[in-house]
């Protein structure tokens, strides 16, 4: 019997009510992902091939882009600044990660937490800090020997701070995956330490190093906030996109810049996928984890390094916090809450802060529900395989799309004349959907990883017990995955709170977000108030994270006794 013949004789399974529920859910997921991710990007792409009247003009916009010297200069600026930042931040992060994974230095948990601090702040907070330090009235201005911090120097400094935890986390993962027996074998053969480092350690983390470089490069090229605050007259791709769209209302050229921004991100994403596949293959299932041994000299040296670096990270963050409490820098250094009286700087007063909280809460609650249920349908669903495969593809797409590009896509998509969803423009719901889409992939991977660890036969067992899948989902799958669900929710909340680039194009008059209000107050010269708003965001994000940790302890320690042996 040929394969084709067996397809023809395939027995058709009767469709039950349960199957209908499953299929409707998958269709709804695909529809959401199409609307929230695929269509905005498609609109952006098509816009870049049209003129202002919507006529197809081929590559004319691109030709015009590359013929405009100022725009090409921005491209070059973005490129070299990103290279310099990458070259600085990756070695720094490598040593820090090495100390945390391969030595027996003390207080590893503390130094890990210290280095992760920048993740809880909007990227532009570090730019504000460096203005306080090296700016026109900076207290260490003389250290720059007359050079100005407003420009490439400031951008690079702030980016190093902002990208440090991202690079460090990738390198910690790479360094933690080591086969202790390779080191024992090398030692047994009397290999000198430097040679072990060159022949065992570096090859083991080379994929992590490459991955970290691409991630940092992409972060720098696509970040908007830092260049906006500290870039001065130094133009980069991200600020160009903003100026073209918001300043000049030149949507076509904005689309072209958006597309140019997409290129490095997509390349980095594709390479990273390749690399991760190999990284996993490096470690066999029988590998023994490496236990670093006590080495007083090495441990002390790395402790010293981590104190210095971690101290710098905390100091940069601290300067902005400190600055926010200073009454009138640099003339009146008494501490006060004057800068937190946002009504003086911002028509809505505390409005943006509450708008941010509101939006982040929506993104966290609905985003987590959509993403986790979506991952369940993709991983454990039955039938409609093509729909599930499409959903999986769309779920992985946002990782390759910078926030600024997604934001541009949303502007064009939602304002298109043919779009019946246009009424959403400027609403908090659209901002939340945009955040969910922007941070979809990481959250999806978290959910899928947790789901993959669950016994595949749960669905089979519940079918044999005549219990519908959605009941087992609610009664078993969700409780088991609760830690991952909390992780996703807090990830969504913190990122929705701190993001600038995705939402800068989308806010409406009544729901300006805190991160955008920072940009505006800084633009208006109210740096201290901008610092105050940034501090408020950091405090909120950190509080949320601490509550999460506490909840994790309490809920999963006491109430979920079934996790303990």
């Amino acid at each position: 019997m040929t394969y084709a013949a067996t397809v023809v004789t395939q027995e058709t399974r009767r469709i039950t009510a349960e199957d209908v529920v499953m299929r409707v859910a998958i269709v709804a997921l695909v529809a959401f992902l199409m609307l929230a991710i695929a269509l905005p990007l498609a609109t952006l792409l098509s816009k870049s091939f049209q003129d202002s009247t919507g006529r197809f003009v081929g590559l004319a916009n691109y030709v015009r882009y590359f013929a405009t010297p100022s725009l090409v200069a921005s491209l070059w600026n973005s490129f070299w600044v990103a290279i310099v930042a990458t070259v600085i931040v990756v070695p720094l992060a490598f040593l820090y990660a090495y100390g945390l994974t391969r030595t027996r230095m003390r207080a590893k948990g503390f130094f890990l937490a210290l280095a992760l601090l920048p993740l809880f702040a909007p990227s532009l907070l570090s730019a504000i800090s460096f203005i306080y330090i090296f700016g026109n009235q900076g207290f260490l201005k003389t250290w720059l020997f007359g050079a100005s911090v407003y420009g490439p120097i400031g951008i690079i400094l702030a980016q190093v701070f902002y990208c440090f935890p991202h690079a460090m986390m990738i390198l910690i993962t790479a360094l933690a995956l080591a086969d202790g027996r390779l080191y024992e074998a090398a030692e047994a053969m009397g290999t000198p330490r430097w040679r072990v480092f060159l022949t065992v350690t570096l090859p083991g983390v080379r994929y992590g190093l490459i991955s970290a470089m691409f991630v940092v490069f992409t972060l720098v090229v696509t970040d908007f906030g830092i260049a906006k605050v500290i870039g001065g007259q130094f133009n980069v791709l991200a600020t160009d996109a903003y100026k073209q769209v918001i300043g000049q209302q030149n949507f076509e050229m904005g689309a072209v810049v958006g597309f140019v921004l997409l290129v490095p991100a997509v390349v980095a994403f594709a390479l990273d996928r390749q690399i991760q596949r190999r990284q996993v293959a490096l470690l066999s299932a029988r590998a023994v984890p490496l236990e670093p041994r006590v080495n007083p000299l090495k441990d002390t040296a790395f402790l010293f390094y981590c104190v210095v670096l971690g101290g710098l990270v905390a100091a940069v963050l601290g300067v902005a916090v400190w600055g926010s409490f200073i009454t009138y820098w640099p003339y009146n250094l008494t501490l006060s809450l004057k800068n937190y009286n946002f009504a003086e700087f911002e028509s809505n007063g505390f409005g943006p802060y509450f708008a941010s909280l509101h939006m982040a809460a929506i993104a966290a609650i609905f985003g987590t529900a959509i993403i986790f249920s979506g991952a369940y349908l993709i991983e454990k669903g039955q039938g409609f395989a093509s729909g599930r495969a499409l959903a999986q593809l769309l779920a992985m797409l946002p990782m390759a799309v910078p926030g600024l590009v997604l934001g541009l896509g949303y502007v064009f998509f939602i304002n298109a004349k043919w779009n019946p969803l246009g009424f959403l423009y400027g609403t908090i719901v659209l901002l939340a959907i945009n955040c969910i889409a922007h941070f979809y992939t990481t959250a999806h991977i978290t959910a899928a990883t947790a789901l993959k660890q669950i016994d595949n036969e749960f669905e089979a067992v519940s079918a044999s017990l005549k219990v519908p899948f959605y009941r087992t989902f609610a009664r078993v799958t969700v409780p088991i995955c609760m830690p991952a669900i909390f992780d996703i929710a807090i990830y969504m909340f913190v990122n929705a709170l701190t993001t600038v680039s995705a939402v800068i194009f989308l806010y409406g008059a009544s729901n300006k977000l805190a991160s955008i209000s920072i940009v505006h107050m800084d633009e208006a010269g109210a740096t201290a108030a901008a610092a105050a708003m940034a501090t408020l965001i950091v405090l909120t994000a950190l509080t949320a994270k601490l509550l999460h940790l506490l909840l994790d302890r309490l809920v999963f320690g006491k109430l979920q006794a079934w996790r303990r042996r």
Partner: protein
Amino acid sequence: MVPHVRVEGVTKRFGAFAALDNVSLAVEQGKLVCFLGPSGCGKTTLLRVIAGLETQDSGRIEIGGRDVTPLPPSQRDFGIVFQSYALFPNLTVAQNVGYGLVNRRKPRKEIRARVAELLTLVGLPEQTSKYPVQLSGGQQQRVALARALASSPSLLLLDEPLSALDARVRVRLRDEIKALQRRLGITTIMVTHDQEEALAMADRIVVMNRGQVEQVGSPADIYARPATAFVADFVGAMNMFDAEVAGPGRVRIGALDLACGGLNGKQPGQRVKLGLRPEEVRVRGVEAGSANAVPVVVELLDFLGAFCRATLRPAAARDLVLRSDFSANAMRDLGIKEGQTLTVGLPPEALRVFDVETAGGA
């Protein structure tokens, strides 16, 4: 007897690989049937097709006289126990066992009574409020069994239920499962790759290989009268020789010329496979003149407790290897040692003849 499960011409392919190739069989009411075979032979796929967890490419499934081919698992009437047990870790033992009952909107009191009854049945009456992680592997197994039996299904499916347990627990549980199955009279299909388990538990064994049924029979049948060289080799230990029919009632293995029963219809010169169980090799009362007396050299003795497995080489055909089991008694009485020469008998009626063609899978 009425067949409770009937499988007719079931074929299942994964790409170009035929996991099940036109399989047909019937399982009688109230019997325990084992699907036995090496990994990849299709036994688990067949079980999942019967359960409706896999959809076959062609063929029919009947359970209890009802054609269930187009029905999803939830509309077929069976309980299932997986190798991993698939107990819900966040639910207590009682909640796991009552999981399917709650959904049927039975009164809470009735459910509690049924759960208690089931847990007593599997020998775990005191463990209702524990979570699965707090139980041993064998206890988890029993809970999974109680859960599968909760709704009184007419068919019980066991997918390698014992292979995750250590040897002692395995032997005890297999006796318990068999006793329980007898008591409830529930038709049971169990998948296993362990021939000892199948021989000990099954009323009937279905030996599978490469997606096809090789032989169906009682354990004694399968062991004593394997239909193919594959079955002979897979179930129990078996010496296998390439041989040639030498004449009426005579076969030749290399330089050995032996008398042999069961050569009906075989022509002189025809190539055959010859099988002999190690325990059939005689060592007592064998003289130079008796039938199929073969002088051998004892090359190696593996001490296995109650008996020794000996590796013998016929003096007249040193390229052949003959494995035989000698009881501890025989070892002591005859003083068998490595390197020694002795004469063993290969009883003509114990030599099993197989066609060369059917030996493909062995």
